[in-house]
């Protein structure tokens, strides 16, 4: 039986178990929107294509399933560029479908034509222009296979309008056919047995080991087995910005987040370590600081599914290419065998006590606001955290509020933290939170945003209102581009250039109400808890809480860009204790 390319596309998406997609129709993608009417797939109509992309990311973050975005050609495709790049940087599985002008018009500068595959080539794991309706099912199968296997990432399929309109004979490719069509794609998932053995020996011999967990631990769903390794040998753990929740913050072995705004304990433990066990982490510049001064005495075990990450920044002593979960299971097995065979772990008790000393001496801290003075953003976060129902998912934008979110929340479960790490995309929070809520409607989803970020993508709250996606948004509103202001204060002699957002405008409460949300404004500490309780009790529409916070609050600790992690800047209240960092 013949069906159209458009019908084949929707059928292929159904075959891939897509339950929801985020999109926006338009000229070239029009044919695909007709069969959607009788499809089981829920389509969420966004207000800007960038929103569709970030929603797909948020959905993928919390479900582990690929997010799907579908938009038209030209400007719609270019609006998808930011989320594609974001997903690429953070290894988020995502499939993007874009319309394209008809095959006969390609290359003629036709209306709404752009070179979508050319533009997105370096920000997708793979992309493909499909030139015949017959090729559509295979292209879609390949897209989902590539997006979700190996190192996950975004895949874009560009489909000309006539390809959607032409008729074809439906054929759903078998696994073998998919494999045969990708002769160069065979991700290595199993680690090399010799390397695993070597890793186990190094781990037992280390006197100052640190487990350095990256986003790959969450992507491979390895949190449990990694915890077993940590507990078996009492190894301290740090969780990067992309791995928050991969190991419980409440666990005695957890030192928190490393990096530019990490805890002093996490940063220092890595610096002083003699063995970093990097699992699904990529030695990002925000973690290492000045690379030549990073963890100079440490040997490196680097487990990553992407061979290109091995040695990209720091040459590992034991490189293991493979899936974090599979490799961790094998490492755990090898450790147990060695221990059963009479091997003894080096005495790490002195190291443990040094690490706990740093934790005790250098907790995250801020000055509470004086009576009558402005609210502290950290206080707002603590209150949201303390009032949050169990399993609440926290989503953030990019900037100071993101760092405070990561610092002051207690992440005790995987997949409860969604943020834009690698690309640092302002405006990520609101649409990503919508995607997360669609993926996990059973959970409370709080988006923490800055007033700068919020103004980039706030219109997606209209999507949330109309599509009944009741997220909660807490704006830490300091009327400034806070992080940039902080850098200008600290590194540009307090010369504030273009960071004042002009306090008072917009009126976030009225704006929220205009978009069909409940708007609440909070000015003083006593109003915080009641506002949060009210927000938590509303589940039929989105809620926006405008927290008017202290303008000049800074994020600490901090390692200045390009500086060594040894030169971590502590909160002013801890400066007198600096000597304990040895």
């Amino acid at each position, binding site marked *: 039986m013949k069906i159209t390319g458009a019908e084949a596309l929707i059928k292929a998406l159904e075959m891939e178990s897509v339950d929801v997609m985020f999109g926006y129709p338009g000229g070239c993608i029009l044919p695909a929107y007709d069969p959607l009417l009788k499809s089981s797939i829920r389509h969420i109509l966004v207000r800007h294509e960038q929103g569709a992309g970030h929603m797909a990311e948020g959905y993928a973050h919390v479900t582990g399933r690929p997010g799907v975005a579908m938009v038209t050609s030209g400007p719609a495709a270019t609006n998808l560029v930011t989320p594609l790049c974001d997903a690429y940087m953070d290894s988020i599985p995502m499939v993007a479908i874009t319309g394209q002008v008809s095959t006969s018009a390609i290359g003629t500068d036709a209306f709404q034509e752009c070179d979508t595959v050319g533009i997105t080539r370096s920000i997708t794991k793979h992309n493909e222009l499909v030139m015949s309706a017959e090729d559509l099912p295979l292209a879609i199968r390949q897209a989902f296979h590539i997006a979700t296997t190996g190192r996950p990432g975004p895949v874009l399929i560009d489909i000309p309008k006539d390809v959607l309109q032409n008729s074809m004979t439906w054929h759903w490719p078998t696994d073998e056919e998919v494999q045969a069509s990708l002769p160069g*794609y*065979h991700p290595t998932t199993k680690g090399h047995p010799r390397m695993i053995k070597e890793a186990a020996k190094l781990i037992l011999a280390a006197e100052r080991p640190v487990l350095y967990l990256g986003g790959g631990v969450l992507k491979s769903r390895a949190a449990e087995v990694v915890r077993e390794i940590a507990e078996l040998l009492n190894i301290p753990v740090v969780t990067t910005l992309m791995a928050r929740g991969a190991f419980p913050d409440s666990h005695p072995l957890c030192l928190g987040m490393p990096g530019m705004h990490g805890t002093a304990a996490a940063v220092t433990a890595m610096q002083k370590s003699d063995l970093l066990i990097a699992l699904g982490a990529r030695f990002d510049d925000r973690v290492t600081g000045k690379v030549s001064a990073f963890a100079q005495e440490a040997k490196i075990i680097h487990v990553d599914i992407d061979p*290109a990450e091995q*040695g990209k920044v720091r040459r590992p002593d034991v490189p293991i290419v493979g899936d974090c979960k599979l490799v961790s299971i094998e490492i755990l097995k090898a450790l147990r065998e060695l221990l059963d065979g009479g091997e003894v772990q080096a005495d790490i008790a002195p190291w443990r006590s040094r690490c706990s000393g740093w934790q005790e001496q250098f907790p995250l801290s801020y000055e509470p606001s004086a009576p009558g003075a402005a609210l502290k953003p950290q206080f707002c976060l603590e209150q949201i955290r303390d009032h949050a129902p169990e399993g609440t998912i926290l989503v953030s934008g990019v900037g100071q509020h993101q760092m405070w979110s990561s610092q002051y929340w207690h992440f005790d479960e995987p997949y409860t933290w969604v943020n834009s790490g690698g690309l640092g995309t302002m405006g990520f929070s609101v649409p990503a939170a919508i995607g997360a809520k669609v993926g996990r409607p059973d959970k409370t989803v709080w988006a923490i945003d800055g007033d700068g970020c919020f103004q980039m993508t706030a219109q997606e709250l209209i999507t949330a209102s109309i599509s009944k996606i009741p997220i909660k948004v807490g704006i830490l509103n300091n009327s400034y581009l806070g992080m940039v202001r902080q850098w200008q204060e600290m590194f540009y002699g307090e010369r504030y250039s273009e960071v004042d957002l002009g306090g008072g405008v917009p009126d976030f409460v009225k704006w929220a109400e205009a978009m069909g949300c409940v708007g609440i404004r909070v000015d003083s500490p006593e109003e915080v808890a009641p506002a949060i309780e009210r927000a938590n009790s509303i589940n039929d529409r989105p809620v926006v809480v405008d927290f008017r916070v202290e303008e000049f609050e800074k994020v600490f600790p901090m390692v200045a860009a390009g500086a060594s992690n040894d030169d971590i800047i502590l909160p002013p209240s801890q400066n007198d204790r600096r000597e304990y960092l040895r």
Partner: protein
Amino acid sequence: MSTYPSPQRHHILSVLVQNKAGVLARVASLFARRGYNIFSLAVAPTEDPQFSRITIVVDVEGTTLEQIVKQLFKLIEVVRISELDPQKSVERELFMATVRTDGENRGQIVELANIFEAKVLAVGVDALTLSLEGSPEKLDDFEELLRGYGIVELQRTGRIALPKLDREAHSRAVKGKAS
């Protein structure tokens, strides 16, 4: 004038790719995006029409080469990459040049062409077009000698290479693994 990069930094990558639209653009944009330098590049279908072979000469130090190879592997359409050791492979390149001649020195140029086993492709009133196929080093030498006569136009194809047959381990091939 040294035409080619120094031997230590010059590496030949023989990259087997799926013969599909846009693959060359993908390879080229990877080099541009990551800041790697292509010295020369030649591409054509192989004995199997499903695949093309791209021969790339890159001018880099060891660690960067490792990254280039690994990043290339990440391209879905790249099937296999071999680094060919110049000592253990046969390399060929084609060279065409139009050289000015005043009539008097035409004989000298033709004689030079004969010594190098080059061909005279076209003869004009005051110029000759020559072609030479051979190892890149031989082409370098020929170019150097012709330069004195005045090269009007020069075109080289970039090298292609295959492993030598009479040695055991002639190339460092890594199977197409990607993530």
